[in-house]
């Protein structure tokens, strides 16, 4: 058993790396509560063990059953914890209000959660990505929406978390303080591949961030490349695998189907062609494939993709077949 | 719970009870048949039953409170939807049902009194009247439900109503709904005839109220259809002329007018209404044409409200609340029937009337919930 996390010098035993302004506050309160807890727990256990030995039943010993009540003692152990929890509550509230109070001048990113991918759109220039790129030492504001079920945005290194609820926008903000690459998790259970709904946050210096955004905004020229580009960004990748090995994901794989007859859940057989793919993207319920009846439902992309984007996706799917061994 | 046992004014009961309880210890052979072996005396049994029933009523209130909370949340969020939709509920029928239930509460309370006083015949009669009222209520409710189904006023995703378009399903929902009550009524009638043949007073006392209740259900159906104005008979959706629908339509008209004048017809809203492809503008010779506003403008509030997420949600809440209430009515009818059997056996007396009293409490609660439902759903405007 190797304790890899102990080797991570960026973090101690307890915490992941601290990379936002919230980390200090949260970690302080955490350690404070931890010590308070130890302060209560250790005496309780010592007293328990001591009483166990000292007052154990044994020949020649008889306890005295008088100590049944001690008002000063009882008041003490009611009042002292009360003051302590009031302090804990207060500290927690102050920290929470910091997290809830949105600063004015922010770098805005729109977050879309859809089973089981994160998609980020940068307000600055409209660039899109699946890894969250952020500039260091800036207030970041996320405007989050879900296209299907509940998700939750969680970056342990930032000590920040917020649920993403379909049908409304949720906002959160934080202030990254350290360049680096951090984990981003979905922490609200969202179906089959919940545990793969993870990506990275890359905190970059301001110059690198600007360069990255400029690079991201460019859509590939080639239609197949653009299809692949969309495939990765529009959350297709999470369910429909495009690997040559035909790995079975939560949804039907793309390769090995083009031009063939495929069975549908309602018993029909249709040809896997442009029309079928288009129908499956815009109206997934009507094109439900046999064998995927218990898979989580795919949301419709009606209004989410432009016609030429659908064309590009079709070209990409078609290319998987004609190229023979496409990349995963 | 105070231990205030009912003080019985009738001396013959006193002696009877005394005979049962005097000088006995806890051996259960000595218990009278109506006193369960683990209770010490009638008072303890009565108090237990009463407290148990009150606790059960508390759970019932909390059960409904979930739906009342949903009602408050969504009405608070979209008050205009509730106003728009409540106009489709026939408040005359609602009022009749309220009256019927109130009357049944009276008969139920009378039944409790009769059971204490050993007025067995009166008790059966009162329980029968309560049962009959419940059946009338359900009959009227059936008409209301099926009428709405045929107009497409269905919950949530099933909501298909396009009022101005005169959506009307020709499916007859009412007849299938009547099959089970009809079969029951026939069975009750046969039972009654059988009881006459064997000349059993007990069976007559049971079968009579049941048969009456069965017939009451159809009385309720008739009453409902009479007031709903024969809209089920197919010819109305083109004409819009008859009284019942006219009343509805005039409601719509008012809403359209109100909301239409409030909304300055923003471009995107009208675009949305044409986008949905649902012809929300009145195309028939409906009364909307009489209103001197631009039909498109008048239709806008409907476009926003007349959809599955808005009006559909209202009808979800409507069906859930009234449906769960109706299930409680049916449950109440079952226990009242059980009481009728016991009453026909003349089991109740001043020291043992707990079951009647407790069912009475339950029945008052069901009534009470309806008293809230009626204004909250029917009388919004």
């Amino acid at each position, binding site marked *: 058993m190797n304790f890899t996390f102990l080797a991570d010098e960026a973090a101690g035993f307890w915490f992941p790396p601290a990379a936002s302004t919230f980390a200090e506050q949260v970690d302080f309160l955490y350690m404070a*509560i931890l010590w308070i807890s130890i302060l*209560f727990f250790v005496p309780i256990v010592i007293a328990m063990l001591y009483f166990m030995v000292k007052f154990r039943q044994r020949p020649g010993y008889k306890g005295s059953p008088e100590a049944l009540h001690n008002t000063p003692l009882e008041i003490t152990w009611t009042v002292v914890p009360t003051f302590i929890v009031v302090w804990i509550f207060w500290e927690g509230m102050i920290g929470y209000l910091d997290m809830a109070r949105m600063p004015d001048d922010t770098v805005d990113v729109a977050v879309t959660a859809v089973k089981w991918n994160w998609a980020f759109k940068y307000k600055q220039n409209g660039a899109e990505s699946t890894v969250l790129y952020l500039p260091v030492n800036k207030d970041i504001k996320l405007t989050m929406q879900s296209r299907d079920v509940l998700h939750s945005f969680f970056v342990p290194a930032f000590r920040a978390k917020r649920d993403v609820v379909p049908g409304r926008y949720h906002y959160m903000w934080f202030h990254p303080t350290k360049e680096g690459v951090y984990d981003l998790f979905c922490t*609200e259970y969202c179906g*089959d591949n919940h545990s793969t709904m993870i990506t990275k946050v890359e905190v970059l210096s301001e110059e690198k961030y600007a360069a990255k955004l400029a690079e991201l905004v460019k859509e590939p020229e080639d239609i197949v490349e653009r299809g692949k580009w969309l495939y990765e960004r529009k959350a297709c990748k999470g369910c429909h695998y495009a690997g040559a090995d035909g790995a079975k994901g939560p949804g039907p794989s793309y390769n090995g189907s083009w031009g063939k007859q495929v069975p549908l859940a309602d018993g029909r057989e249709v040809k896997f062609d442009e029309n079928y793919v288009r129908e499956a993207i815009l109206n997934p319920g009507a094109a439900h494939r046999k064998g995927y009846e218990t898979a989580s439902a795919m949301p419709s992309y009606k209004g989410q993709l432009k016609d030429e984007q659908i064309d590009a996706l079709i070209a990409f799917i078609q290319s998987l077949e004609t190229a023979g061994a496409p990349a995963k | 719970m105070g231990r205030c046992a009912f003080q019985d004014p009738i001396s013959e009961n006193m002696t009877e009870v005394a005979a049962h309880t005097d000088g006995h210890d806890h051996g259960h052979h000595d218990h009278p048949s109506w006193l369960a072996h683990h209770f010490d005396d009638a008072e303890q049994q009565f108090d237990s039953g009463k407290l148990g029933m009150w606790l059960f009523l508390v759970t019932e209130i909390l059960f409904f409170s979930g739906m009342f909370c949903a009602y408050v949340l969504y009405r608070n969020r979209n008050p205009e939807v509730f106003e728009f939709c409540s106009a489709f509920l026939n408040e005359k029928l609602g009022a009749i049902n309220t009256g019927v239930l109130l009357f049944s509460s009276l008969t139920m309370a009378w039944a409790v009194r009769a059971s204490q006083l050993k007025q067995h015949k009166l008790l059966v009669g009162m329980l029968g009247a309560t049962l009959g009222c419940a059946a009338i209520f359900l009959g009227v409710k059936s008409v209301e439900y099926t009428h709405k189904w045929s107009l497409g006023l269905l919950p949530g995703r099933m909501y298909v109503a396009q009022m101005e378009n005169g959506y009307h399903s020709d499916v007859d929902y009412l007849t299938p709904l009547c099959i089970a009550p009809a079969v029951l009524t026939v069975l009750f009638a046969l039972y009654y005839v059988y009881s006459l043949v064997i000349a059993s007073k007990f069976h007559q006392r049971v079968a009579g109220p049941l048969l009456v209740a069965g017939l009451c259900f159809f009385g309720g159906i008739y009453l409902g259809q009479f007031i709903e104005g024969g809209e089920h008979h197919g010819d109305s959706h083109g004409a819009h002329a008859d009284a019942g629908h006219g009343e509805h339509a005039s409601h719509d008209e008012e809403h359209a007018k109100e909301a239409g004048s409030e909304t300055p017809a923003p471009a995107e809203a009208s675009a949305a209404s044409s986008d949905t492809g649902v012809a929300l503008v009145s195309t028939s010779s409906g009364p909307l044409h009489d209103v001197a506003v631009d039909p498109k403008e008048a239709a806008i509030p409907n476009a926003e409200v007349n959809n599955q997420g808005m009006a559909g949600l209202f009808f979800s809440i409507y069906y859930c609340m009234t449906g769960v209430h109706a299930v409680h009515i049916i449950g109440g009818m079952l226990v009242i029937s059980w009481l009728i059997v016991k009453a026909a056996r003349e089991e109740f007396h001043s020291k043992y009337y707990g079951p009647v009293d407790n069912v009475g409490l339950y029945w008052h609660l069901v009534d009470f919930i309806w008293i809230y439902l009626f204004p909250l759903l029917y009388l919004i405007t």
Partner: protein
Amino acid sequence: MSAVTTPITAPTTTHDGATEHHYLNHSSGFLSWALTLDHKRIGMMYLAGILFAFFLGGVFALAIRIHLWNPNQDPDAAWLTNATYNRVFTLHGAIMVFLFIIPSIPAALGNFLLPIMLGTKDVAFPRLNLGSFYLWITGLIFFAYTLFSTQIDTGWTFYTPYSIEAKSAVEAATLGVFILGFSSIFTGLNFIVTINTMRPPGMSWFKMPLFLWALYATSIIQVLATPVLGITVLLLALERTFGIGIFDPSLNGDPVTFQHFFWFYSHPAVYIMILPAMGIISELMSVHSHKGIFGYRMIAYSSIAIALFGFLVWGHHMFTSGMADVTTIVFSALTFTVSIPSAIKVFNWLGTMYQGTVALNTPMIYALAFIFLFTIGGLTGLFLGALATDMHLHDTYFVVAHFHYVMMGGTLVAFLGGLFHWWPKMTGKMFNDPMGIVSAAIVFVGFNLTFLPQFVLGTRGMPRRYASYVPEFQSLHQLSTVGACILGFGLLVAGLVLLHSLFYGKKAPMNPWGGATLEWECSSPPPHDNFSHPPAVGDPYDFANVEYDGKTGGYYKKKK
């Protein structure tokens, strides 16, 4: 009462040759159990049922831990597919919560003990009691149906909108929960009425054993909170069948409303699970310390306080759900109010041991393990009640560890302690005490090894309900899995000790531990009607007259 029961003509004989009638041999045959109105038999049937459910849930728990031995980042190499894993953890949670923990102490031990502790013949409504049991069985059948069809993969919380679109047997599971809810309501109702109206003369409220106070507080919650769960799952089932839209954002419904409805029940339900456990510990600490309970009134009041405050804190499950800031802060403040009565109880239990005569036998060892584990569970609640830290810890393994410390380290361990404590009363057999202590020790070690690493996992950011995880978490996960296997082994030993006693155990004396409550004043096992004469009611925690008798190996109450 029951007409079908047939009294046995030749009752069993004990070693001393005397014939003995008790509830187990009162009548025989399948129907004499299936249609019994005797609270003791109903309690025993519940016990068998919930132990079966516990076994089932435990198998799923082990499956989870074994699956998480590897990070499973390559789904093809994982033991379970993601979809299967989701079903396994959902079934583990749902079975453990709805079929095991909630009914465990009230329905099994409570049913058996409540009337005896009250000195009555039965609960107020014996037929309703049997009805509750069959509702429980019906709920079990619904769950069995989901198990053999497409299972459930929504998590035990059934959060919408995933639960609306999930293609698994959610309807059957929600109806199962609905039915189990009514089983729970009727049990609670029965207990409240029994305690209110059937206390014997001389037993005032403050002469009641604390286990009864705990059951009373629990019953209040069961009666008041469960109906809301009932309507919530009913609406969810309707949502799936008719698309009513109340919780469906695509129809303008609000998923956060579902969370409010759900936790309005399910948070008080947490106290349905822990309050009876606290009641058991109060009994165990006092009886095995041979000393009256320290601060009786405070413990009694704190039970009721927890039950009432428990209704006001449901929002702390939703701090990240996007409630208004004010709401969030108020819920956080209210949450801390619940911590105080719980702390008071721990101190009182320690005070009970002070200057007592502490018998270190199996039930007491379990009770001491409870104090250790429950204190950790309670203190880690402070991290989650404080808003700033909860933002980080919410929905991570920290939460998982916290509620396992409370629910399992608390309720399960107390349940086992209570089971060992009253086992001689229920079955009339003594178990092997040293082996019982061994089982408690293994459970204790295994439990800590399973769940202590999960606190670290959670703090480091490991989200819950993950079928796969980033490799840095592997070593802690493996520690946890090793612990789970030890824990499973410990529970197996405990089960075997009890099973062994049924066949080879010595005959239990009337009062093997020296308790002063009424259940120790009837024979072990109790006769059909519990008491031939109504027992004299005294102080339930007055041990002054309880004397050991070497001949029977038990205690007796000296007549004053």
